[in-house]
């Protein structure tokens, strides 16, 4: 059984209710897919991390899907995002599928999207600049 949720308070609360219902039917506990994760927001402390969510829900994580702009165009044109070799969300979904078939696949590193250390440093300084002006 797979439970899919976003790292958002109302979504996690709903997921907890679903897990409760599954357990009541002896179909639990299921495994968790955390969808639409933004690593830079987690780093800033503005988004629950996968660890926070598994802590709260007390179920096993099977995949983390990053927020990805290729998802909506894929859905628009009716081509599964999993077929897009360049989509990070696609990779995440394929990894989940492999884990479901029993393969051991390491969780992907989600921080690549922020463009490396120097880019992050530049963003950080830019942030400091904005703070000073405001």
């Amino acid at each position, binding site marked *: 059984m797979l439970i899919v949720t976003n790292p958002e308070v109302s979504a996690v609360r709903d997921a907890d209710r679903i897990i409760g219902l599954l357990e009541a039917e002896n179909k639990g506990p299921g495994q968790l897919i955390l969808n639409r994760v933004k690593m830079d927001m987690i780093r*800033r402390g*503005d988004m629950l991390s996968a660890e*926070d969510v598994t802590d709260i829900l007390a179920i096993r994580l099977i995949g983390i899907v990053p927020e990805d702009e290729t998802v909506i165009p894929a859905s628009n044109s009716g081509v599964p995002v999993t077929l897009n070799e360049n989509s990070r969300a696609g990779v995440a979904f394929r990894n989940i599928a492999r884990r479901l078939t029993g393969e051991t696949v390491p969780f992907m590193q989600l921080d690549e999207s922020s463009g490396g250390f120097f880019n992050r440093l530049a963003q950080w300084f830019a942030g400091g600049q904005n703070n000073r002006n405001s």
Partner: protein
Amino acid sequence: MSGFFDRFLNRGKEQSSAKSAKERLQFVLIHDRINLPPERLQQMKEEILAVISKYVDVAAEDVDIALEQRERNRNMLIAEIPFSKSRKVEDSAGAAADNTNAHTASATDDQHDTRAESPEDEAASDDETTDKPASQ
């Protein structure tokens, strides 16, 4: 340059919104899971105290009755209900000798706390070994 240092020093000082989210969730889920909203819990606390007060003097202001979660389906009601500081002993006997007795009694009050832990569901009651206070 001060903005730089402010930003640096402020980091971690204010609680991050993710941390608030986690705390908010933990609070709301413990009530969700046992289907007992905070108002009902408050009502229950008052009734428990009323019953206990019929038999012993309770230090009402120090009472702590709260829900606690060990893991999913391991919710407990933890009650710490200290007796009031031996007023009855002082009242009943005015002698100085008795006053010293009252003193020792209040010094050991902590050991006399009514400590009750009641497992919330059957799964928890199977396991008697969980009758210890949480280490977290």
